[in-house]
Structure formats: C-alpha cells, structure tokens
C-alpha cells in the first residue's frame, strides 16, 4: 500500500518535472522567405534549415532554455510575385525574419526602413570575414551593409556546338570560340553575320539566330556596357545613361530584328517555351546565366548534363568593337534580416552558421559561384568542370546599381528595347525617348551623358 503511494508520488513528480522542463524550453519560430526562381537554387532555403539544426545543437550544448524552429518558403514563380508579397508583409508587420533576395532590393527596402543594418553583426561573427571582399560592395548602401552576399554568378554567351558544326565549323574552330570572344576577335557583328549564314543555310529557322531573355531583366546591360555604357557615377552615386552606348545596343537589337536574326516578338515568349526551344537545339546563340546550365540539365533536357555538355559551349558576352573587352554581369543575392523582427540576434547567428563553405558549396548545384574565399579552395568546387571553366568570367563582371530609382530606369530602358525590336521605334528615336522618359521620371536622380 505504502509502496503504491510512493510510486504515485514519484509518477506525479516525474510528470511535474517533465511539464516544467517542457514549459521552460521555449520554441522560437523564425520565418525565412527565399527565392530561386530557378528550382535548383532551393539550397537557399535548405541551407537555412540545416543551419537551424546546427544552431539548435549549439543551443543545447550551451544549456539554453529555447530552441529555434525555422519555417521556410521558396519562391519558384517570379520575382515580381515574391517582391509584391514581401512589400505587403512589410507593410502589415508580418514579414519574415529572414529574406533571401536580389542585392538590388537593398536600395528600396532600406529606404523604406524594412532592412536591418548588419555592420554590428558582421564585426561580431568571424564567419563573415570569409566573404569575398568585392561582394560586400553589392550589399552596401549609403555606407551601411544590409545583406550577407550569396550565390554570385556570371551571365555567359552560349553557342550551340551541334548547329555550328552543321554550319561547317570544325571542332577546333568551335573550341576556339570562347578564346576569340575573350580577345575581342569575335564580336556582336560576327554574331549577326554567323546567324544570318546559319539561317540562309537552313541550319536554324529565321528569328532563331540569337535569343536574349524574353523579359525585363539585367541581361541587356552587359551589352550596353560593351558599347561603353555606364549605369551609375561611382563618385556621386547618381544613375547614368550613356546615349552612345544605348544607341549601340538599340542599333544592334534593331538590326537583329530587321534582318531576322532575332524574332520580332521574342519578348513576351513564355520562359518555359524559351528554355525548351534553346535546349531542343533550335537557336544558334543565346545569352543566359550560369544557373541556366543547371536548369537546362535538370529541368529541360531528357539527356541531362551529358546532353547539355555535348550541345552547348559558353563564353563571355562578346565585345562591341574588334579588339574590345567582352563583358558579363553578376546579380548576387543576399540574406537580409527584417528590421521588424523580434529575434534579430538569433537570425544573425543563423546567418553566421550558414556563411560557411559547407553550405556555400551547394551554390554549385544551381550553377552559381561561391561567395566565400575558402569555398573556392574546396575540392568539390575545383572538381566542378562547369564552374571552374566559368570562374574567369568574374574578372569581367559588373553589376546593376543599388539605387532606389533603378527600377524605373530599368523599366524605361526595357520599354525602348521592346519598341526597337518590335519595329515601332528606330534606334535614334528610342534613345531620344529614353532620355525624355528618364528625365521626366527621375529628374536629377539621373545624369545623361
């Protein structure tokens, strides 16, 4: 009898202790919204999830009375939807604690007061010292750092080796093409000439000589820069529009549309159709990203990486003039902390854990380059044939300006490109119109040169 009473007390004590323990250990939920939109870039969310497990192990070892639960979201549809959702979340005070997005978002979001300055945390955690020094420029705005850079890339000029061979190019000639582009020996005019030859020979259909992206975006600016264009004055921070360079770009694209190298209505082609047409070998040249290589192999090709390696060669974007310098463009992403979060310290600690080669190396899965110095020495990176072959492109890269007026700037320039390709404006008219629109929309935020 006494025994059974003792057992009952013991049981009650164990239950009470368990309840007390459970009540004492809080769960703090952190939310992270991330974006591809290319599906192989899902590591931007998965890395955070894995880092949260490590963080919890650390918390357990420290005897902390709380654990972290991380809820992630990975957007695969469009930047536009993702940004709209975030803006509404910022406005309603329901934004996620962590965000992975373009480095360009810093200007508008920090002006809006939605992002936390990270300088203090960067000084606190040694992990951030490993970030490639030049990448901090992409995430610094008005003297403060707002993001931890991830996944820089390059935007190669791809050529279809099978089609060039059909056109009569020898294997050596095809192999030599990236080198010729690097030396400024194969320029944009040559792209037009070879495309016309391929169309005339029936190797590709009219309009399938060269394809750029079918939508608004950064790719047009590497060609604008090849013509000597500038986007921002490094001294004043003011946006810049270089009329001669824009005329060069518009003239090139107008000529391509007039002569049937490019489809007049290429802009507006749905992305899946664009990728399928390129991967199916119907387009001679195209401009895309390093991540496209992974996207084509995993999402659009039945033959996977073997087929993509056999079919596509890659180089820098050609120069505008013979002997000129080729170009490319990088559009790194960054992890941000929402200024309204209640758990900034935990979020920053999580970012310090994810900023290690172990996680950074996963960038390769989506065709992105490492953001950390030590990842560049990792065997996995050195053995990655594609990335090691494109890594030289980083020396020729540039980026779009982190400026809160750049959204309007980009919209106006893209509208003019659209007008030139559809034949509604001549290149000269388009330059004139762009200047007029930029001045009307941005006033003294833009300088015309």
């Amino acid at each position: 009898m006494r025994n059974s009473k003792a057992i009952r007390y013991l049981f009650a004590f164990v239950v009470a202790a368990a309840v007390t323990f459970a009540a004492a250990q809080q769960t703090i939920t952190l939310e992270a919204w991330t974006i591809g939109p290319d599906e192989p870039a899902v590591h931007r969310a998965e890395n955070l999830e894995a880092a949260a497990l490590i963080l919890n192990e650390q918390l357990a070892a420290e005897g902390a009375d709380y654990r972290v639960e991380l809820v992630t979201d990975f957007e695969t549809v469009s930047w536009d939807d993702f940004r709209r959702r975030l803006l509404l979340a910022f406005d309603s005070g329901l934004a996620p604690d962590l965000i992975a997005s373009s480095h360009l978002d810093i200007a508008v979001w920090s002006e809006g007061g939605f992002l936390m300055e990270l300088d203090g945390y960067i000084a606190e955690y040694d992990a951030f010292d490993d970030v490639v020094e030049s990448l901090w420029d992409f995430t610094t705005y008005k003297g403060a750092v707002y993001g931890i850079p991830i996944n820089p890339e390059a935007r190669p000029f791809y050529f279809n080796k099978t089609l060039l061979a059909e056109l009569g190019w020898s294997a050596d000639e095809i192999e030599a093409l990236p080198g010729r582009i690097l030396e400024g020996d194969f320029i944009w005019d040559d792209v037009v000439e070879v495309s016309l030859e391929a169309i005339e020979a029936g190797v590709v259909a009219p309009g399938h000589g060269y394809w750029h992206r079918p939508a608004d975006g950064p790719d047009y600016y590497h060609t604008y820069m090849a013509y000597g264009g500038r986007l921002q004055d490094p001294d004043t921070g003011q946006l810049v529009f270089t009329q001669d360079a824009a005329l060069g770009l518009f003239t090139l694209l107008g000529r391509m549309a007039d002569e049937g190298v490019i489809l007049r209505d290429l802009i507006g082609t749905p992305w899946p159709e664009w990728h399928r047409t390129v991967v199916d070998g119907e387009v001679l040249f195209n401009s895309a990203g390093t991540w496209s290589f992974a996207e084509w192999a995993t999402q659009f090709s039945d033959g996977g990486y073997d087929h993509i390696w056999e079919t596509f060669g890659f180089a820098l974007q050609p120069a505008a003039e013979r002997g000129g310098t080729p170009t490319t463009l990088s559009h790194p992403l960054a992890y941000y902390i929402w200024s309204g979060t209640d758990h900034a310290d935990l979020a920053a600690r999580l970012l310090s854990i994810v900023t290690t080669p172990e996680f950074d190396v996963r960038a390769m899965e989506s065709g992105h380059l490492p953001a950390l110095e030590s990842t560049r020495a990792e065997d996995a990176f050195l053995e990655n044939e594609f990335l090691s072959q494109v890594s030289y492109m980083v020396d020729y890269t540039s980026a779009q300006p982190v400026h809160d007026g750049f959204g309007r700037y980009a919209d106006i320039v893209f509208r003019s490109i659209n007008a030139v390709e559809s034949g509604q404006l001549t290149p000269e008219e388009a330059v004139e119109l762009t200047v007029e629109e930029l001045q009307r929309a941005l006033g003294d935020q833009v300088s015309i040169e």
Partner: protein
Amino acid sequence: MSTPAAATDRGAARHGGNRASSWKLPALFLLPALIIVLLFFFGPAIVTGYLSMTDLSARTLSDPSFVGFDNYEYVLGSRWTPLILRNTLFYVGVTLLFNVGMGLVLAIVISGMSDRVGNVFRLLWLLPRITSPVIYVVMWQALMARAPYGFLSQLTGQSQNWVNAYPWHSVILINGVVGASLGMLIFTAAIRSIPEDLFRAAAVDGATTWQTVRRVILPLMRWPIMFVTAYQTLSLLASFEYILLLTNGGPGFFTTEVWSLWAYKEAFQSYVGNVEFGLGAAMAAFLVVTGIVASLIYLRVFRFNDLLARPKIEVN
C-alpha cells in the same frame, strides 16, 4: 365635440405621421445595403482618391508625403496617355460588342433548342467562366504557341506565336468567350420571361424568325441588355488579368496595354520592386471617373427612367 379645424389638424398630423413612417421602414430595409455600399464602394474610392495625392511607394511605405495633384499631372503629361486611352477604348468597345452580341446570339439560338441540348451548350459556354483565369490563359497559350509546342501551329503548318501575331484578336476572343457566357445566361432568362402569347401572336401574323427577334424579343430585352452592357463596360474597364497573363501589354510597345493594366504595373510591378502606389491610385482614380461617366451615359441612352416608370395601365 371637434371642430372642422381640429379635424383638419388631426388629418395633417396623421398625414405627417404617415409621411414619417413612409420613409422610416424603407430606410430600415435599405440600411444594410447602404452600409455595404458605403464601406465597400465609396470607402475604397475615397481611399484611392487620398492615396492618389500622396507619394506612397515601396520606398515611402511607412511615411508617405502629400503631393497634391502631382501624380495626376504626371499621368496627363505622359506621352503614352493618348495611346493607352485609345487602346482602352478599343478593347472595351470591341470586347463589349463581342460579349453582348455573342451572348445575345447564343441566348436566342439556345432558347430555340430543346432543354436537354440547350443545357449542354450552356454548360459548355460556361466552362471558360468557371475555369481559373491562369489555367484558362495557359491553355490558350498552349494552343497558340510556336511549333512543336502549339496546337494551332501544328494544325496549320505555320509555326508562329499566334498570340503575338494577332494580339488584339487573341485578347478580345479570350475575354469575349468568358464575357459572352454571362450575357447568355441573363438573356436566356429574359427570353424565357417573355409571355408565350407574344410569340404565338407573331407567328399568327406571319412574322419571320428575324422579325420575331427584331420586333418582339429585342424590344422586350432593353433592360437586360442595358444591365449586361453597363456591367460589362465597368468590368472590362477595371479588369486586366487576361491581358496581363496573355500578352502583358505587348507584344512590342504598349500594343495591348490598357489603362487598368498600366495602373497595375505602376502600382505593383517593377523588376526591382520600386513600385508607386500613389501614382497607381491616381491612374485608378481616372478609371473611377470614367466608370461613373459611362454609367450615366448608359442610363440616358437606355432611358433608365422610362424603364423604372410606373406602367400607365395596370392589368390585374
């Protein structure tokens, strides 16, 4: 004993009391609708008007400034305003003709069929309306893509993106098919409510089918036609989802850009997220005014007051 004067006073009081109760009860019944209209119709219009006078954007979301009529000046000063206005008028006008005309034709033709066959046709025509716009447009895109992906390109042997080749045709057709189903339903109900006697009388008088439609059906359908026309006009002015999904205002340069799509893009769409809610609200305010003006014109054209007038002869 009451005097005639007192009786008159009481009469007046009774009359006054009747007058008070004559508006109190209807007011009570109208109150819920009034609250809804104020909250969900006037409220948003007033908020739109207020926002249109601020510089509210992604950048100034937490602290917008009052800018007066700057946004309106910006819109009116744009060189694209006349082009987009023309596009909007064309889109609304032609789609409306398609919607109302097709709805009417369908209703008349289907009313002549047996119920069983008619119901099958009605259901078929309702499918686009009950399909989600995104799926509906993706299906059209699959139909109209270049070969080997597009059905139409395969069928005709001419590989082209048919949406880009015929942008307005596509936009109007795709919108029109959805819009026609609404007209079809309402017109069918209206045709069924026409007394059978009138059709018999017309037949006895030797009226042809066309004469029956022209002289019997159409005059009795002024009310539903006015309703569908006004409703579709306002709906077309404000809706842009099919254009957004199908052409996004292209191909090329503002080819199929209509006012509401332009406003949406200014307010919500930008490659690097710098969206201008204030400017978008100013553009939306133009639509509110246009909608009111169009409604007033319709009320006059269709002689709305006559439709509401008490019949001169009451037949019981």
